[in-house]
């Protein structure tokens, strides 16, 4: 009798529990990275323990197939509640109806780096727990040896100074190539790392006033000047081209093959371990000011979610400084708030990568905020690869412009 009533109590207890905690599914792109998995699991665990209304269930995907999985799930109607989304892709997913605007307390994101906030058509859709930045990586000893001025955030190299630096490195004969741009990293790296150069020249992938045409932006005078400059980097023997060995991209600078490498903060830890005089220089000013790419992976709520409040509550919970700092310490990413930056090993005042925070804050530009970006990124990548391989600059940029315009037209202006 006692046993039976105990059982009944237990059953009631379990069912109450089930009713109480609504399950929220969440997808994440970082499968295979142990540190990253630990960090995200920690947040999920803490959130589930902190309240009893929702229970988040995490599923991780390898990054290479993550976007395809989301698109497939959306077509099949199986989207999770909480989505992880790459910043520049977000407008496409929002436009396609995979995501809904994110309702979180404005004050929580007031002091975030702009690159960590995913906004489209004046609505917030996603927030990142970190940002990423790119810098011109070199060593103080290399600059000294070549007799070069150390550029600063306030006083970056001009285009001429930058080219003179490359010439000096080339003339020294000590390097296979003066500059490593990372041409081996195909895909999103091209628009992320190189379109800011184009913007620094005064051009752009697409005319951002209304995102209806690339004419003039991608094939105007500024863009043509950029194209000639870009081609010269390869024909002039300054940088390895599209057939660069991926292994050289990963370890070429550390092994002394290159004098400079255009690389992200995620690669900085390895270089710092090898050389203690590593410098992270700002991008050169190629005309309209130094610029680097912003926006990394962010969290948002899928349109299919029946519990957007719960999903938003989780995202809000994840935005605590301690988690932002933990991600930064774990994988070297840029903490998106001053508070969290102060808590980290590398980005606190005097930290080895402190400069990235300021780079991100002062120079970061986001990639075109339009659903058409997904196509534009591919067109841009191909155009840059072709120009690097010696294609006619004007014809290539014209063709890219036409392709982007045709795509915009075929999508009724997005």
């Amino acid at each position, binding site marked *: 009798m006692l046993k039976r009533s105990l059982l009944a109590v237990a059953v009631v207890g379990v069912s109450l529990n089930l009713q109480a905690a609504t399950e929220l599914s969440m997808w994440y792109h970082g499968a295979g990275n142990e540190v990253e998995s630990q960090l995200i699991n920690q947040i999920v665990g803490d959130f589930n323990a902190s309240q009893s209304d929702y229970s988040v269930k995490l599923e991780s995907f390898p990054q290479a197939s993550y976007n*395809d999985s989301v*698109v497939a799930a*959306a*077509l099949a109607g199986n989207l999770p509640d909480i989505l992880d989304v790459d910043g520049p892709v977000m407008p496409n997913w929002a*436009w*396609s*109806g*995979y995501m809904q605007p994110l309702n979180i307390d404005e004050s929580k994101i007031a002091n975030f780096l702009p690159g960590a906030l995913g906004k489209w058509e004046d609505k917030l859709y996603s927030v990142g727990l970190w940002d990423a930045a790119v810098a011109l990586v070199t060593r103080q000893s290399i600059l000294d040896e070549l007799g070069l001025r150390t550029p600063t955030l306030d006083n970056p190299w001009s285009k001429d100074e930058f080219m003179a630096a490359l010439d000096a490195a080339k003339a020294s004969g000590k390097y296979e190539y003066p500059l490593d741009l990372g041409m081996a990293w*195909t895909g999103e790296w091209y628009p992320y790392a190189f379109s800011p150069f184009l913007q620094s020249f005064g051009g752009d992938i697409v005319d951002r006033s209304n995102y209806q045409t690339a004419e003039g932006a991608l094939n105007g005078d500024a863009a043509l000047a950029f194209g000639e400059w870009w081609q010269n980097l390869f024909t002039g023997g300054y940088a390895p*081209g*599209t*057939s660069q*060995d991926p292994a*050289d991209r990963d370890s070429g600078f550390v092994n002394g093959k290159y004098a400079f490498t255009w690389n992200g903060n995620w690669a900085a830890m390895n270089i710092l371990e090898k050389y203690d005089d590593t410098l992270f220089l700002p991008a050169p000013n190629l005309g309209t000011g130094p610029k680097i790419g912003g926006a990394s992976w962010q969290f948002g709520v899928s349109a299919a979610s029946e519990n957007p409040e719960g999903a938003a509550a989780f995202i809000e919970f994840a935005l605590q400084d301690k988690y932002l700092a933990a991600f930064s310490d774990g994988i070297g990413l840029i903490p998106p708030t001053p508070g969290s930056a102060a808590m980290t090993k590398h980005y606190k005042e005097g930290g080895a990568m402190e400069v990235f925070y300021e780079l991100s804050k002062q120079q970061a530009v986001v990639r075109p905020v339009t659903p058409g970006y*997904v*196509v534009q990124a*591919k067109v841009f990548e*191909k155009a840059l*690869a*072709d120009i690097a*391989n*010696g*294609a006619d600059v*004007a*014809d290539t940029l*014209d*063709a890219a412009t*036409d392709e982007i315009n*045709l*795509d915009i037209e*075929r*999508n*009724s202006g997005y």
Partner: protein
Amino acid sequence: MNFRSLLMRDIICFSGFTMSIQSKLTSANRTGWLMALPTLSLITLFIIVPLIFAFGLSFTNQRLISPNPTEFVGWKNYYQLLDLSFVKLSPEVDEAGAAKVNNDGSYEYPRIRTLSRSNPEYEHLRGMREWTSWQLGEDRLYLMARDVVFMKAVVNTLFFVLVVAPLQGGLALALALLINQRLRGINLYRAIYFMPVVVSIVVVSLLWRLIYDANDGLLNNLLGTLSFGLIPPLDWLGSPDTAMESIIAMSIWQAVGFHMVIWLSGLQTISPTLYEAAAIEGSNKWQTFRYVTWPGLRNTAVLVLIVITMQAFALFAQIDVMTQGGPLDSTQTIVFQAVERGYGKQDISGGSTISVLLFIIVLSISLIQRYLTREKH
């Protein structure tokens, strides 16, 4: 990503299958149909239905994902891919009206972009690009294409097929003749030649990317050592002059074993008595091959030719892994473009249109091959 080549492989199986069942269709019984049912239904579901879809979608503006409704656009997708136009330009003239001549004797022509982008007289050229050009006396004739990349993909694919079909078929036959001998350990050689076929093409492509590496790749090292350093290292996949040839060589090597086995099975169906008779007649090795072996391989040859042609048209995985169509479009292929557009650029209608065009090309070439290799009575 590899589904397109899978699909092609299924089409190949399918066409082989239809050929063999055609004559027996009339006498088919219930058991026969029943046994064919699983395959037939899978083929219908995964080949025929998608093909019908592709035909339909190629006349719309269907996107992979889009909130906009799908619209019927008629032949626009085909026009976009296939539109060609000629334009003849006269050389730039100096003030006196005579054609300006450069130091090397060539002429200067106005840039096409100044005409196609802003000159209302050339409105029909808007959005078109120079594909190639020829000299006509003082003038220059430009062939303009609306989709130069697709045109290059078609030409590259045809080049690939034309080189691979005879070379791979011939090499496979030579290997089959070599291993069709009673020698100790011959099975070892058979296994070695067949091995690349069993390994995934993606893995093979990754390995060959290392072999072709510009700096310290195996091939460059080998050539350098054999020539005592006379042959400088080449950027095999990074140069437009060698990229396609490199992929051709690797593709021939990879699939040659498969066709070798088909030839081998053909060789083993030839009756030994014919060879004995030939030996008694005193025929030499060449005569034996020419008058006994080759006639006996007739049907095998037709099969090998058609299969290689179809597989070659489906060239995709090597491109996807090794070059992504570059450098300078020198390795663009039809199937790679179909996938790149359909999935990469989310343009399902464009990808479908390319698939339909590929279907028509392969179908007509197969029909021509069937006609040319038909039994003559």
